[in-house]
């Protein structure tokens, strides 16, 4: 049971990292990024391939952050001059392009068969101890990321991105270039998603393109909506609720055994959808309150 809780904790923290990136991009800056999973995928594949080709973990993780960040750069240049809704479509398209490339470039990614046997972090410590060490590492990285986002939010840079979210033209009228700020935000958020991807790959040890479907992006959106948009605490709590539901719904079969294993996957998604609807009806500001609507 403890091993199971640690396992859920690790996945929850990966979602927290993803949510923190989106908190910076959407919560603080107002960028509607529907392609978050694309950067998550780039991070997972980059670190897996680097480490399996002999690089140390630290290089794998740095490479994941770097490549995900670099991938965000051209997206920013091309699409940040577009209106919000166009930006959303472009990012959604981007993440699908990433998934299709991962499926098609078999020489590099092994296509739909994916990459098995990715080394685990701390495998020399053995099962339980290795798990706990992995959990501690992700926790430390997540705390550092949360500290960084808090720091950004309370800074001169944070004032400008929040001003951009409130009224972009007024920011221009004051002599500041919104795209310069948005690109930085996009790159930092993507790098966080890349690091989350690297943790994911080294934790589950087997990655396939089908893990990086848009549903993952929308899980992250659900987490920040349920937790409270624009708040670091909201990102954390929303991810925990999401994980509790995704994992908790596993146990529904103990109560209602007539649902088959196959149907269960759909039932889980349905339940999470229901949870989101209930949140939007009864607590639209999220548990911690919506910072953008205060």
């Amino acid at each position, binding site marked *: 049971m403890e091993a199971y809780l640690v396992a859920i904790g690790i996945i929850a923290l990966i979602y927290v990292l993803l949510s923190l990136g989106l908190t910076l991009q959407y919560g603080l800056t107002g960028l509607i990024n529907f392609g978050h999973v694309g950067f998550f995928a780039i991070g997972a594949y980059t670190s897996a391939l680097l480490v399996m080709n002999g690089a140390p973990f630290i290089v794998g993780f740095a490479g994941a952050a770097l490549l995900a960040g670099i991938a965000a750069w051209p997206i920013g240049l091309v699409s940040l001059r577009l209106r919000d809704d166009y930006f959303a479509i472009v990012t959604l398209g981007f993440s699908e392009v990433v998934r299709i490339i991962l499926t098609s470039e078999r020489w590099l990614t092994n296509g739909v068969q994916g990459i098995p046997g990715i080394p685990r972090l701390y495998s020399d410590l053995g099962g339980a101890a290795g798990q706990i060490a992995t959990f501690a590492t992700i926790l430390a990285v997540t705390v550092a990321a949360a500290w960084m986002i808090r*720091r*950004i939010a309370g*800074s*001169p*840079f944070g*004032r*400008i991105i*929040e*001003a951009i*979210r*409130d*009224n972009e*033209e*007024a920011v*221009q*009228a*004051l*002599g*500041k*270039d919104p795209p310069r*700020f948005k690109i*930085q935000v996009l790159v*930092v958020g993507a790098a966080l998603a890349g690091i989350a991807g690297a943790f994911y790959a080294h934790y589950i040890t087997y990655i396939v393109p089908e893990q990086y479907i848009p549903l993952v992006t929308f899980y992250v959106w659900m987490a920040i909506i349920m937790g409270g948009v624009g708040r670091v605490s909201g990102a954390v709590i929303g991810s925990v609720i999401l994980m509790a539901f995704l994992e908790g719904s596993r146990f529904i079969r103990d109560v209602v055994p007539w649902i088959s294993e196959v149907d269960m996957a759909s039932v889980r998604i349905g339940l999470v959808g229901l949870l989101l609807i209930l949140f939007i009806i009864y607590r639209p500001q999220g548990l911690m309150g919506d*910072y*953008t609507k*205060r």
Partner: protein
Amino acid sequence: MSLEICDITKSFGGFRALDGVRLTIETDALFGIIGPNGAGKSTLFSVISGFVAADAGEVRLNGNRIDALSPPQRARAGMLRTFQVPREFSHLTVRENLMASAPDQTGESLLGLFFRPGQVRTEEAAIAETVERTMAFLKLDKVADVPSGKLSGGQKKLLELGRALMVQPKLILLDEPFAGVNPVLIGEIMERIKELNARGIGFVIIEHDLEALTRLVPRLAVMDRGKVLAEGAPAAVLEDPVVREAYLGGVS
């Protein structure tokens, strides 16, 4: 030192919003633009500040063409604009709105923020001082920590002016600074504008309220249907029969 608007034309579909507008305004002047709704006043501001591209014509600031510059570049050249409907950063407090407006902050880049924290702190202290002075000058100090979305219409207009002042402008384009503002506050905003003008900051003011504007500016232009009908001292301009016909509906 002047702002020259040379034969600016702009159409939206079949509607000619600006039709060969030509004006020369000294950058340290107090200059008014009046005209009925749809005369093209706000469109003219948008063209001058770079938010709307003209179909034809030129805008020059101190002799240099600025048509190719982006809105932020024009603001950095010292020409600020405000908006007819205030565009406060509604989730930021009044103080934060003004702090955000200060130019060239080291802490505005992530590299500066994380690698030059000392520099950022020094600048923040200096900006905070300027903000305190600006809030006192505009009588916004009582609402310093109120989210700006909760201000009254008049206070939002003052905040717009305050944000422009933070950029240390040479010329400010004010779009209807008195619209929806209570009469007491109008008097105060006028006093502030006069004081600032005495310190060398120029103003171009679009206004609906004819009476308020004639008390404030020594020179104004009258616009109607995208054209400048007349320009000069308020008294002379308002006696112009063409102006009376167009703007005052021919009532004598």
